């Protein structure tokens, strides 16, 4: 299907055509910009760099109820995951992250919660025109207009959005709203190309990943881990705000006789993450946990799924309270190889 244009003035009408579906988009909540389901008539904020908390929560909520039950009974009540969702304005890096994480949830055991949501979710990306200070997506194979994981890519061309459908889901969305769309001319495509080139120029940070996945196992006992983790506080900021981090814990929780089994994000940076019932912890210190975080993304995940589990969004660098900088760590890894 050819590219289309959506005049910005038609946004409300456009969203109106999608009634019945939950629309996730960036909007300001208090003082914080975050991806949230839009309330009726709410206009998303597309003039942004990226949200601090990644939109992974749309398909992988921080806390998910797997089933509810009454204590003393055997009946389980399962949530229905029938909701159709469209995530508007997701950055190409975050969409790539979802494509990367899909591998895991499809692997050995198919995860019904995640996959059901993914199946019912359309990802509409927004070309990145103003990358942040710590963005390094091109180093990981992404880019300001990367399409991996996306169903449709929107590009802000001033008065209108260029809409390029990439998958069947994307084409369905275009078909549903075709009355409001105009055919895009070649100049629109040209404008997009210029915008992307400008955006690419703004990306300052980079890392050559060649040799890292193969080399990391050999650096197991290297001193660099001690140095890069010395100041680590052991908090979950880097992992919880990472769009590819996907570890979870499962707990039964009760309130009176009401009980639920739920799963929630977990972080390999927490001591209890690997704590055994015996009291033994195979990753006893933050040094081992930091090493695991890098190894998981840049080595183990590559072994299993042939892709690095990092998209270069820069969140862990931006928000680490003590300036632990993954690009800096990777540079040290390269030097040590």
């Amino acid at each position, binding site marked *: 299907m050819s590219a289309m244009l959506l005049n910005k003035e038609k946004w409300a009408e456009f969203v109106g055509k999608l009634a019945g579906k939950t629309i996730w988009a960036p909007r300001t909540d208090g003082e914080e910009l975050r991806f949230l389901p839009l309330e009726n008539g709410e206009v998303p904020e597309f003039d942004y760099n990226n949200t601090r908390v990644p939109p992974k929560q749309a398909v992988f909520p921080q806390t998910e109820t797997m089933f509810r039950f009454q204590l003393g009974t055997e009946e389980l009540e399962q949530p229905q995951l029938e909701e159709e969702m469209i995530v508007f304005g997701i950055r190409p890096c975050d969409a790539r992250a979802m494509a990367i994480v899909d591998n895991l949830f499809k692997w050995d055991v198919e995860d019904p919660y995640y996959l059901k949501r993914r199946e019912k979710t359309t990802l509409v990306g927004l070309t990145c025109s103003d990358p942040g200070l710590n963005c390094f997506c091109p180093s990981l194979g992404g880019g300001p207009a990367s399409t991996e994981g996306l169903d449709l890519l929107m590009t802000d061309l001033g008065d209108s959005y260029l809409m390029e459908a990439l998958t069947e889901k994307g084409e369905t969305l275009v078909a549903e709203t075709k009355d409001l769309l105009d055919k895009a001319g070649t100049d629109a495509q040209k404008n997009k190309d210029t915008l992307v080139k400008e955006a690419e120029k703004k990306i300052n940070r980079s890392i050559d990943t060649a040799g890292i996945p193969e080399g990391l196992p050999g650096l197991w006992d290297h001193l660099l881990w001690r140095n890069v983790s010395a100041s680590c506080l052991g908090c979950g900021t880097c992992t*919880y705000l990472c769009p590819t981090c996907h570890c979870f814990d499962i707990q039964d929780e009760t309130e009176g006789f009401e009980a639920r089994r739920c799963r929630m994000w977990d972080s390999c940076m927490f001591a209890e993450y690997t704590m055994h019932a015996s009291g033994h912890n195979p990753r006893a210190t933050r040094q081992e946990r930091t090493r695991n975080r890098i190894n998981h993304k840049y080595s183990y995940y590559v072994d299993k799924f042939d892709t690095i589990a990092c998209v270069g969004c820069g969140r862990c660098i931006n928000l680490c309270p003590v300036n632990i900088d993954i690009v*800096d760590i990777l540079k040290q890894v390269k030097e040590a190889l």
Partner: protein
Amino acid sequence: MDLEQLRKIAAEVVAREDVNYLIGWKQGTYGYRVAPVFIEDPADASELIFSPLCTANLATYLTLVEKPPLPRGQEPDTRKVALMVKGCDSRAVAQLLVEKGINREGVVIIGCPCPGMVDHSLLAEKYPETEDLAEIKWDGEGFLLLRDGEEVKLDRYEVLAEKCRLCRYPNPLVSDILLGEEVEPWEPEEDSGVTEIEDKDIEGRWAYWEEQFANCVRCYSCRNVCPLCYCEDCILDRLNPDWINRSVNFSENTAFHIARAFHLAGRCSECGECERVCPANIPLGRLNRKLAREVRDKYGFEPGLDPEAEPFQASYKPDDPEDFIL
């Protein structure tokens, strides 16, 4: 402060046989970032800095230190740890001494009189951070920003951190070595952040905190960065009983933050680190300063001023005002 003097003294301290390492600040990896650094070799003391960007309180590393099981026959290293502190940081150290969380003999405290720190996000908002390392200096009443070969004069109150606006103790209250001259304390501002919430009615306060706590992602950076949150067995990590569920929702998040605030009442040294590190921008300082205000008003007690003091909760004074008891 004279950096040469700082580095020389630090190198001497690290060279001492009874000192294991020194915890200080160094230039970060880009922009305005400053990172904690652990100096074990006197030669590395040249990395140390003390600038208006050294906002972080390093006292947390005294209790965050990990003690993994040692190989058989190996003795634990009992040498002293040297720590650089500003006035607010020294209050945390004093409070740790009061609580016997650390031993006085185990630390060498290097006091840095502090003319006030810059709020990193305020600075970045006004002068966007770039990849290049920038430097900031104290300059008369204000600051001087040096970056990309240019100098920008900054008005003090344009970028001063909130904790410094409220600061009553810019000079270290406990130290073994004092670097440079003590600074003249300035008139602290009234804590309008706390007053703003006190002025709301009950529903207004609830609505305010509900919005804040709903944003919490439970990364626990506030707990981990806090020099006075150092329980070996934190109620947050407990599974049996699970005092606070792992579920992330307003109710559990609120339980977490209230529990933490109460555990810090009469202990918090108001270093503001919890608020600085929060990735969800929750104004945790207001919560802790409210309890500090209560303790100050009702018991006339301020933690971290005297390392010899009795812990607030463990002391009893027959002449307590007690005007809040019916």
